[in-house]
């Protein structure tokens, strides 16, 4: 383990294993300009393509912006309009519901990952590929297949239900059902990614702990609860952060699965879809920038909050 981990440590920590504060100061003095030179390309890229656009968007959110440019300062107008816009709250609620449903996939992924990582399981890598495939497939392609599955008249899902005498709903064209349908596909396609991360976390749990707990007479279920889950919390935390951020950014799946002209879209749209429709369909780009800043702040707050909370439940020492 020590050998495996050492490359990820910084060089000075091996050269001078002193206390943290001393180590940092010494490194800065000794390394001079070179670390900055190596980081510069990345820094320039992030600065140019991430930080600068964010600052610009923040500025544009205070302007009224014509289709072909020509922003004029309009103060807090966009934000006041946004907060009074009922569509914002519909979109926010939809995004939260979607995120909630997709998060149900995390415990499911923990369970599935531990099943796949059962020692001596045959075809384990085959299963791993099977679960990971949806994640690497294009969201649009995935959505088109699910669109056919969900079809109310001719879809395979309603056909299967009809065998049991159930008349299935029009999944993607009934308000309510449509959001659930999108979330189910979102859950399904993110499962593989979560399982890979959690699987790697599982591999890092020393087998001695299982042996020891077995000697102490722990059952498989008890082992899962008292050894696997606590030692997996850093991975679970990572998966949670990534899942929440990507769920808040729901767009392509929704767009492709429901279709932009779907009548249920106003009742089903996510925040990012709302941003898109205002900025790129209605050409109201200053307003769209305000929506984007809203999403940005929302994700920022939720993420910081998660990092605060993690101290209480993530096993870090």
């Amino acid at each position, binding site marked *: 383990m020590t050998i495996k981990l050492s490359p990820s440590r910084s060089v000075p920590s091996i050269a001078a294993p002193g206390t943290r504060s001393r180590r940092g100061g010494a490194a800065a003095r000794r390394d001079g300009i070179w670390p900055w030179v190596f980081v510069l390309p990345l820094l320039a890229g992030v600065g140019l393509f991430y930080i600068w656009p964010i600052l610009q968007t923040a500025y544009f959110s205070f302007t009224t912006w014509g289709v072909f440019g020509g922003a004029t300062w309009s103060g807090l107008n966009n934000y006041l309009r946004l907060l009074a816009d009922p569509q914002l709250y519909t979109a926010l609620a939809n995004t939260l519901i979607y995120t909630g449903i997709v998060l149900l996939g995390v415990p499911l992924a923990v369970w599935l990952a531990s099943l796949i990582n059962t020692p001596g399981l045959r075809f384990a890598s085959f299963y791993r590929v099977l679960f990971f495939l949806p994640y690497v497939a294009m969201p649009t392609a995935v959505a088109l297949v699910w669109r056919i599955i969900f079809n109310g008249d001719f879809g395979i899902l309603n056909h299967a239900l009809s065998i049991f005498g159930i008349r299935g709903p029009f999944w993607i064209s009934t308000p309510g059902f449509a959001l659930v349908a999108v979330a189910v596909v979102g859950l399904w396609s993110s499962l593989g990614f979560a399982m890979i991360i959690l699987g790697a976390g599982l591999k890092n749990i*020393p087998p001695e702990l299982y042996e020891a707990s077995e000697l102490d007479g722990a059952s498989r279920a008890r082992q899962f609860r008292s050894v696997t889950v606590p030692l997996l919390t850093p991975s679970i935390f990572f998966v949670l952060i990534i899942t929440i951020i990507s769920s808040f950014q729901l767009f392509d799946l929704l767009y492709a699965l429901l279709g932009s002209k779907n009548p*249920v879209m*106003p009742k089903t749209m996510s925040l990012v879809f709302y941003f898109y429709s205002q900025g790129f369909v209605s050409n109201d780009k200053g307003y769209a920038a305000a929506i984007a800043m809203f999403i940005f702040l929302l994700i*920022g707050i939720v*993420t910081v909050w998660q990092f605060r909370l993690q101290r209480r439940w993530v096993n*870090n020492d």
Partner: protein
Amino acid sequence: MQILSSGGRATRRRLLLGFMGVLGTAALVAGCSANSGSSTTTASSSYTAPDKNLSANITYALWDQTQKKAIDANIVEFNKAYPKIKVNVDVTPWTDYWTKLQTEASSNTLPDLFWLNGPNFQLYASNGKVEPITSVVKAGAIDPANYPKALDALYTLNGVEYGVPKDFDTIGLWYNKDLFQKAGVSVPTSSWTWADFNTAASTISQKLSKDGIYGAVAGMDGQTTYYNTIFQAGGSVLASDGKKSGYDSAATQKGIQFWTDLIASKGSPTMQQLTDTAADQWFVSGKAAMYWGGDWARSEIAASPIASSVNVAPLPAGEKKATVIHGVSNVVAAAGKHKQAAQALQVFLASKKAQQQQGDMGAIIPAFNGTQAAFAKSLPGVDLQVFLDELVYAQPLPTSKNTAAWNAFEAALLPDAFSGSKPVAATLKDLATQMNGALAKE
């Protein structure tokens, strides 16, 4: 214990990753940050055909790959007259075309000559992005009288014309002869009225219900369905000055009610069924006997299993006969560097010779009067002449400076009226209010 102590460092790295994720969202917005370009003024100099030896390198932007072959042939002809003007044809697929064009327009780097459609025309013209054809017409190089009047109107803003159409599309009533025969109903004729259509639709639905076949399909698309019935009822989508919505008029309401009644009579699948399976899919899979579709539907229909049993009739008449007409136009960028060369190509592409070649080779109806004979014969056994005969009563697709904004309201509100879940009159009142709000902002 190593594994556990590594957790602290890993978490810090994850913090960074998480932060990057947050940044990613904001970067979404990067798409809308472009230079705030100043709009250029259109200096209308007089047009003279360029010298034969004019040397220039120009770009011609369009979105339809299937027309590229005919356009390349056009350009070969063009280069016979102007051997030193090199034309780069730049094809961008439909979905990206408008995003790209908007970005180019913002930075005044539009292609020298490009395709523009009705819904986007006023946006570009009112912002001074495209060059009027006034001087070209004055010089006698293009005569607007050679093209359908409704389409000249489509590309005219405040009395100034910016382009003539290269092609046109009208809407027809496609029908499946086999399904009519099976149901024992006589096929549509040019004298059909709304009542004939409704009776046939509900009769076929009733008789063939056990096969899941419907008499007709409603649609959610203005150009192929409800704009037509609005015009047929004598209503309007936009007032003639283009500044007010027409949705609160009684005649317009009749045009919308037509589709609500069709669905209520079970002559068409429900709105939900149509959302899950699009109208054209119902028709080409033999599950619907009638379909309101443009002439462009013929390639899809010809490739479908029902190809041999299809024919087309003019749209049924309401208060009067009407169809929506739309066509694409070639326009010259106002800020282009080689405007004279671009105008020479614009003039050539508008000529009878070029459009005849387009019609003979391509999958379009050329706009120049008298060049459409090849189109009418392009699908044996199908009376495509219908689409040409409809020109007499064709009305242009309703457009304004920001068409997309109120198109979005139509898409959001009208389905509830069609499905009957909200009363038609109340929905249209709502729509008119929202649309007027959008029009006031233009």
